[in-house]
């Protein structure tokens, strides 16, 4: 045994160790986020002067720098074409850079809305921003991964930071409970995903997405049970992350318990990254096995759409309601994946783009209305909001209507594109179910709007028995900016959608 090993070592000594070339530019946005997080950590432990606004400002600068690097990569890919980097572990194509831009935007908005929240709740340190930046870098790695193990690493970087963020509000028991539930189910889903990776590796001999695709194109397996089991486990693992029914059970509890800005970040970044990996792995790598996964995705999309919209109707907590609504949204993105065409994928991308701004905007409003302690999330709190804070109520109405898919908002176009992609492929039943789910969903979005505008503000005191002098809702300037940006995006690109549609169309996968 030992002589054999020595002989091997001796044999390889002649050849120098081949190290892969690391193209740092390919992952520049993610590296900027990690660097920013590390600088924040060092800063807080080394420098004594720490003005509280500094952390937010620094995170904003980091997010903006990541956005700049992403846009630079976007034009680079457009001019020089997509490429693979770091020994084929990452891929820089329109698809991954699209998600870089999207995640950078999430970071900027979440930092804006975290600032006011942290100040209100009396948290001074930079932990929130550090964890958020690290988590976002994981999301970027997931989007750019060209290897299943890199997808797994990105998933874990994203999730582990999010477990801590979910339990960030240490004084609220709900927050810690949410962290616990998220952690247990997240670890479970990661293990399932990883077992899927192992089985796919065993069946195809590689974890590299391109090698897998080449193997599948060149070999027809007569007994591909291991491969199919692996593929199913990958779907389940990622399905947990993006909250697809029946793997959604953690979503309402965690969304309700986690601090509101964290919920907003989680709902956008985690879902976006999960779908990035899901779309790339299934649409591009397993495209030869389409006939095997398409019916499964069809079924998942149907139950996700129906369960998400129907269960949202019976919720009395706004965050739980939006949790089910985010499950419902995941169903629409699955419609795009199920179509399995370029139009379906660009429709799904546009959906994720519109969804990110709608959901972050919604949670910005919820953060403000939650008041100190982050505890006022019953639907009754929204009674007569329009009389007290008309602009806030207007912004929330825009987000809710956009999520319902009302015309002249991005939400309408997003639903339109995925449904039309399904119709092009002849999935009439799925398209019909999607539209029916939208009708059901419109009910609970409109109910909140009605509560805000058509019930008197005084009703709140009667129903809640709250102290008569309601403290006026304080809208921090940074949160106001975040809300304004999200409203502007939702309305402007709802009216003039062509730049964003072109953006989603050009975000093509490198096959």
């Amino acid at each position, binding site marked *: 045994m030992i002589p054999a090993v020595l002989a091997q070592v001796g044999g390889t000594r002649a050849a120098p160790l081949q190290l892969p070339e690391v193209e740092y530019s390919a992952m520049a946005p993610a590296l900027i986020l990690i660097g920013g997080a590390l600088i924040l950590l060092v800063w807080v432990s080394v420098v004594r002067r720490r003005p509280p606004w500094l952390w937010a400002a620094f995170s904003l600068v980091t997010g903006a720098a990541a956005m700049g690097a992403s846009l630079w990569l976007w034009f680079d890919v457009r001019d020089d074409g997509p490429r693979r980097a770091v020994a084929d572990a990452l891929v820089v194509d329109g698809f991954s850079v699209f998600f870089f831009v999207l995640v950078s935007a999430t970071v900027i908005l979440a930092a804006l809305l975290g600032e006011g929240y942290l100040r209100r709740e009396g948290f001074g340190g930079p932990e929130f921003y550090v964890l958020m930046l690290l988590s976002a870098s994981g999301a970027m790695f997931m989007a750019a991964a060209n290897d299943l*193990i890199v997808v*797994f*690493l990105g998933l*874990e970087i994203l999730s*582990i930071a999010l*477990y*801590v963020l979910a*339990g960030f509000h*240490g004084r609220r*028991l*709900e927050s*810690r*409970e*949410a*962290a*616990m*539930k998220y*952690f*247990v189910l997240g*670890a*479970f889903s*990661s*293990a*399932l995903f*990883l*077992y899927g*990776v*192992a*089985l796919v*590796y*065993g069946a195809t*001999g*590689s*974890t590299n997405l391109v090698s897998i695709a080449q193997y599948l194109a060149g070999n027809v397996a007569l007994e591909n049970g291991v491969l199919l089991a692996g593929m199913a486990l990958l779907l389940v693992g990622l399905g947990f992350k993006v909250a697809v029914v029946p793997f959604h059970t953690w979503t*309402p*509890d965690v969304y*309700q*318990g986690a601090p509101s800005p964290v919920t907003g970040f989680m709902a956008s970044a985690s879902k976006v990254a999960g779908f990035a990996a899901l779309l790339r792995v299934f649409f591009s790598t397993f495209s030869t096995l389409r006939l095997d996964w398409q019916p499964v995705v069809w079924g998942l999309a149907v139950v996700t759409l129906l369960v998400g919209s129907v269960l949202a109707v019976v*919720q*009395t*907590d706004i965050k*739980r309601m939006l949790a089910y609504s985010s499950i419902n949204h995941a169903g629409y993105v699955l419609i795009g994946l199920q179509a399995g065409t370029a139009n379906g994928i660009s429709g799904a991308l546009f959906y994720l783009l519109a969804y990110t701004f709608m959901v972050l905007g919604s949670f910005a409003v919820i953060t403000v209305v939650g008041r100190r302690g982050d505890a006022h999330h019953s639907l009754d709190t929204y009674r007569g909001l329009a009389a007290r804070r008309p602009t806030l109520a207007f912004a929330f109405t825009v987000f809710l209507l956009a999520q319902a898919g009302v015309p002249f908002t991005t939400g309408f176009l997003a639903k339109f594109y995925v449904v039309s992609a399904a119709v092009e492929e002849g999935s009439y039943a799925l398209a019909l179910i999607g539209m029916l789910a939208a009708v059901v969903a419109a009910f609970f979005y409109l109910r909140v709007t009605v509560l805000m505008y058509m019930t008197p503000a005084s009703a709140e005191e009667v129903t809640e028995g709250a102290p008569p002098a309601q403290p006026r809702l304080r809208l921090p300037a940074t949160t106001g900016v975040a809300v304004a940006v999200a409203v502007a995006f939702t309305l402007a690109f709802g009216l003039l959608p062509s730049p964003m549609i072109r953006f989603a169309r050009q975000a093509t996968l490198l096959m």
Partner: protein
Amino acid sequence: MTLDGGWYLTLAAVLFTIGAVGLLVRRNVLVMFMCVELMLNAVNLTFVTFARMLDDIGGQALVFFVLVVAAAEVVVGLGIIVSIFRRRGGTTADDLHLLKG
């Protein structure tokens, strides 16, 4: 004596199933936590076995990634468990009942 790779894969699948079922039925959070570790190590065994069967070093290298991630998860997970159960005697998941609906 040599054993066919299939036996190792079967053992790994059995271990993974025990872990998954244990996570779903046990009520003690620490035991649930150990079940996650069991699942991850079953995956490691699968990776190593496939690497041996395919004669490919890549599968063995992947185990290191899994080990590192599992260690990071342990750190965060135990931190969360400690923070939530510090003021209580036991660590049963049934105590987590604030969020439902």
